[in-house]
C-alpha cells in the first residue's frame, strides 16, 4: 500500500504560497478568536470596567482593556439566581438526545437504503431530503399545533422530537454516502464467518465512524444553536441556553456581564465536543481491505 505521507518539493512558488497562507491564517485567527477573547475577558469584568475602552486609534492605550480586577460574580449569579444549570442541562439533553436518536435511526435507515435495491429508491431518498427543504418557520405553526395537542410543548422529549425531525433526513443522507463506500464484500465475508445481518451491520459500523462523528457534531450543533424551536416548543419547561441568554436582554437594564458569561457557558462545551470528536473524523479507515 502506498504511504499516505505528502511528498513536498521545494520551489519559489511554494515559498510564496506558504507566506500567503501564513498571512491568511493570522487574519483569520484574529477575525475568529478576537470576539471570543473579548467575550471571555468581559465576562470577568464589573459593568464599569467593561466600558473602559481606549479612544479610537489610540493603540497605546489598549492596556486599559486588561486593567481590571477579575470577578466571578456573573458566573455565580448565572448558576444561582438565574438557574443556568437547569438550562445547560436542558440544552445538553435536547441536543445530545436528538443526536443519539437521529444517529441510531439514521444509521439503520442509511444502511438499509445503501444495501437494498428496490423500486422507487431514488424517489424515497428525494422525499427524505425534501423534508429538510422547507424553512423551519414554514412548519413551525402546524408543528406547534400537533405538539400541543400531544402534550409535547414545553417538554424535553418534545424538543428532542422536533430536532430529530430535522436531523434524521440529514443523518440518512450523510451516512448513506459512508455506507456506500464500505465494500459489500466485507459484509459477505462476515456472513460467511457466521454473522447474521444485524451482526454484519454492527461489524462494519466502525468503518463509518468518520461519518457518524461528523454527523453527531452537526446534529448537536443544530440543537445547541437552535433558538426558534426552543423558544416556541421548548418554552417554559424545556428552556435552553440560547433562550435563557436572550431573556437576559431586558428593556431597562441590559446585563452585559451575565450575557458575556452566558456566552462563554454556551461556547465552551461545543469546543470540547469538537476536540473530542476530532479523532473520529479521520477518513480512510477502509483503505486496503479489498483489492480494487
Amino acid at each position, binding site marked *: 500500500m502506498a504511504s499516505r505521507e505528502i511528498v513536498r518539493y521545494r520551489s519559489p512558488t511554494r515559498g510564496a504560497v506558504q507566506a500567503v497562507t501564513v498571512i491568511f491564517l493570522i487574519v483569520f485567527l484574529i477575525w475568529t478568536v478576537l470576539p471570543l477573547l473579548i467575550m471571555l475577558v468581559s465576562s470577568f469584568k464589573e459593568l464599569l470596567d467593561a466600558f473602559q475602552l481606549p479612544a479610537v486609534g489610540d493603540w497605546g492605550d489598549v492596556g486599559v482593556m486588561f486593567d481590571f480586577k477579575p470577578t466571578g460574580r456573573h458566573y455565580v449569579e448565572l448558576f444561582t439566581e438565574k438557574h443556568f444549570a437547569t438550562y445547560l442541562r436542558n440544552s445538553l439533553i435536547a441536543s445530545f438526545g436528538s443526536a443519539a436518536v437521529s444517529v441510531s435511526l439514521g444509521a439503520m435507515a442509511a444502511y438499509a437504503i445503501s444495501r437494498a435495491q428496490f423500486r422507487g429508491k431514488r424517489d424515497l431518498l428525494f422525499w427524505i431530503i425534501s423534508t429538510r427543504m422547507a424553512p423551519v418557520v414554514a412548519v413551525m405553526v402546524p408543528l406547534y399545533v400537533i405538539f400541543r395537542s400531544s402534550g409535547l410543548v414545553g417538554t424535553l422529549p418534545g424538543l428532542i422530537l422536533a430536532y430529530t425531525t430535522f436531523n434524521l433526513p440529514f443523518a440518512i443522507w450523510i451516512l448513506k454516502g459512508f455506507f456506500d463506500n464500505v465494500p459489500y464484500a*466485507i459484509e459477505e465475508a462476515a456472513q460467511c*464467518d457466521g454473522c447474521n445481518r444485524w451482526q454484519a451491520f454492527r461489524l462494519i459500523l466502525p468503518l463509518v465512524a468518520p461519518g457518524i462523528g461528523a454527523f453527531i457534531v452537526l446534529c448537536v450543533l443544530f440543537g445547541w444553536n437552535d433558538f426558534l424551536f426552543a423558544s416556541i416548543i421548548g418554552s417554559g419547561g424545556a428552556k435552553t441556553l440560547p433562550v435563557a441568554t436572550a431573556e437576559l436582554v431586558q428593556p431597562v437594564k441590559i446585563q452585559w456581564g451575565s450575557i458575556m458569561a452566558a456566552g462563554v457557558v454556551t461556547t465552551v462545551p461545543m469546543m470540547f465536543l469538537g476536540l473530542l470528536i476530532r479523532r473520529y473524523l479521520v477518513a480512510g479507515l477502509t483503505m486496503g*481491505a479489498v483489492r480494487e
Partner: protein
Amino acid sequence: MAAVTIKDVWKYYGKTLAVKELNLEIKKNEFMCLLGPSGCGKSTTLRMLAGLEFISSGDIHFDDVRVNDLPPRERDIAMVFENYALYPHKTVFENLANPLKLRKMSRSEIVERVRRAAEMLEISELLNRKPGELSGGQKQRTAIGRAIVREPKVFLFDEPIAHLDAKLRSHMRGELKHLQRRLETTTVYVTHDQLEGMSMADRIAVMHEGVLQQLGTPSEIYNHPANEFVAGFVGEPPMNFLDVRLERSNEGLSVVHPAFQLTLTDAQRHLLENGNAESDTRIGIRPDNLLIESGDGGSLDIAGSIFVTEPLGGDMLIEANLDAETRVMVKTKIREMGGPGDPCRIGFDIEKLHVFNKETGVAYF
C-alpha cells in the same frame, strides 16, 4: 463435511447468463476444482454455493438438505474471497478470530487455533497489524487463515493464492492440499490457473462461458480432453491445433496436412468411424508429444525449420515451422537445437494424437 449436489442450476444477472444448466456432484471430502478462463462463471457458482447469490433456477443440496434458501451462516461454509474482503479496522488476529468468536469458543481455544493457522500461513509476526499495513500476498494469506481456523462443512476458495509470488504459491499449493487431506473437508476451489487445478484437485470441472465442459480427474482432463476448448485450456505450453483432412489409403486411415501425412492406429480409426467423423477435422498434439531432432539428417518424418528457441532451464521450448503457414510448439530435453532458420526434423507420437470435430469442437479421442 458434506457432499454437495448442484442440480440444473442456472444463474442470470438480469439478462446476462452467467451459469447455464450446471450439474455437478461433489463427493464427501472431495477436492473439486472449478477451472476456466476469466468470466466463465466460476465465482458465480461458488457464490451460489456460499449463499451470497440467488439461484435463478435449480437446486443445491448439502448432503440431503436443500440449501437454496439458507443464508450463508446456516450453511456452515468458510469462504476465501477473490478480493480478500478482510475487516480493515481489525487486526490480523481479530480477523482470524472473528468466526471463532461468533461460535462462542473460549478465549484460550481461539488463541490456540489462530496461532496454529498463522504459523502454517507464515503470518505469525503480522497478527497485530491491520490489513492496510499488509502486502497483497500477506492479505491473501490472512484471508485463507480466516477460513481455515474453523472446521466448516465445505471450504470455498476463490482464487486464494492467485496473488502470491511463484515460490509462495507452490508452497501454499502443497499446504492447502495437505490441509484438505488432513481435515477431510469437502472443498470447492476456483482457479483460472490450470496448474493449480492439475496439482491439487481430486476432480476438475472445466467451465467455459457458463457451461460445464468436462468433469474428470486431472489425468482424464489432461489425457482425454472432451473437446477442443478443454484441450487448449489445460496444459502448458498449450496444445498445437492443425486443420487436416482424413483420407483412406492402403495402410488404413490417414491424417493429411500439406506438410505431412500420418497413418492412424486401428483403435483410432475405429473411434473415428464410430463417430462418423467428417473428412475435414482438426488434430491436436501437445508440445511434449512432438519429437524433434536438429539438422536435416535425422530419422523423423517431417522436415521443418526453427522459428525461435526458448530455454526453460531444464527443458527447451521450440517453435518450428512445418511450412509457410504452419507453426508448432515442441518441448524437448535436447539443448543444442541451433538458431532461427536452422533446419530440424519433427515427428508425432501418434498414440498421443487428439482429433476434434472441426465444427463442434467435440473430441473423437
